[in-house]
């Protein structure tokens, strides 16, 4: 599990981030069971008053989620792009151990570049 804080509005400290992540993991699993429709893959979007939470689950089960302001567009494509960055700069790095927090310089650099507001619109393809 690894958390990146790229926002300008609010900041989550480490404890809060961990709390959100573990809560989300359980909620995601429960929602898969609760669904009235068969073959549900879990929660994709959580809309609240002050924030939106988009979630993307990859085929092996790794979950990427982003907490953003309500109504921010192109979050799904951003998540998909982040997944690409993950497979490139984290999984191909011989110094990264699976399941450990991500400390890869290239991943961080590309992630901050992707999240800059003017770039996110470009991802909406």
């Amino acid at each position, binding site marked *: 599990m690894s958390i990146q804080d790229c926002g300008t509005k609010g900041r989550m400290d480490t404890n809060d981030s961990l709390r959100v992540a573990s809560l989300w993991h359980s909620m995601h699993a429960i929602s898969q069971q609760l669904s009235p429709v068969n073959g549900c893959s879990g929660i994709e979007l959580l809309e609240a008053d002050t924030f939106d939470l988009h979630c993307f689950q990859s085929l092996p089960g790794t979950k990427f989620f982003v907490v953003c302001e309500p109504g921010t567009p192109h979050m799904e494509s951003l998540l998909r792009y982040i997944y690409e960055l993950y497979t*490139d*700069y984290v999984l*191909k*790095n*011989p*110094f990264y151990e699976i399941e450990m927090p991500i*400390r*890869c*310089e*290239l*991943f961080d*650099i590309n992630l901050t570049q992707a999240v800059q507001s003017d770039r996110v619109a470009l991802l909406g393809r």
Partner: protein
Amino acid sequence: MIGVGKMKQYSNVLDKPLSKGKQEVSLTAFSFLFSELVQYNQTQVDNIAELERRLEDAGYAVGARVLELLCNREKGNRRETRLLGILSFVHSTVWKVLFGKIADSLEKGTEHEDEYMISEKELLVNRFISIPKDMGTFNCGAFVAGIVKGVLDNAGFPAVVTAHFVPIEGQQRPRTTILIKFADEVNAYITLFHSLFLKLWDKTLTFDTCSAFFHPFCNRCLKERHG
């Protein structure tokens, strides 16, 4: 069977011509394989210097084979005898075949006579690799340094080759430089040829002509010319 007559059947597999083969390999596949090579070697060693040594040895084997293959394929089995020749062979041909492009630059070192540097903005093998802070100046480009060493040693130009990160102002990521330091024997060969040449030819030949004909990087020529 349809089509079987079209291909010439070779009775001996050694008679078959060496094909150029598929020119491209998936970068992802190579990255995973290289990552596994590094991880495996990490489990076998105790410190970083040994890890570098292991990667260099792995590259050495590649370099030796690449030299043989390229001499046959690209140069028609001609042996390179000049220092500049073998350096530009590494810088262009070897790089083109292995990494799909020629190296960014080839420079002569300013501090020592027999040092040369091949620079690259980012080595292909390092494309997806981020070195953790606690590993200091370790560079997985040691593999590529090993390849260059393999080529040079087997071509008759023994050298010590290392890979270094060189930080550049204004850029986040440092450049990589492959530093080649030729052994003393190489210097000796050049000086030997130089003296032989002078004895055989008219001594009034200027050093300029001599160097232009023979070896542009001869140390004695440079010393006579520049004092």
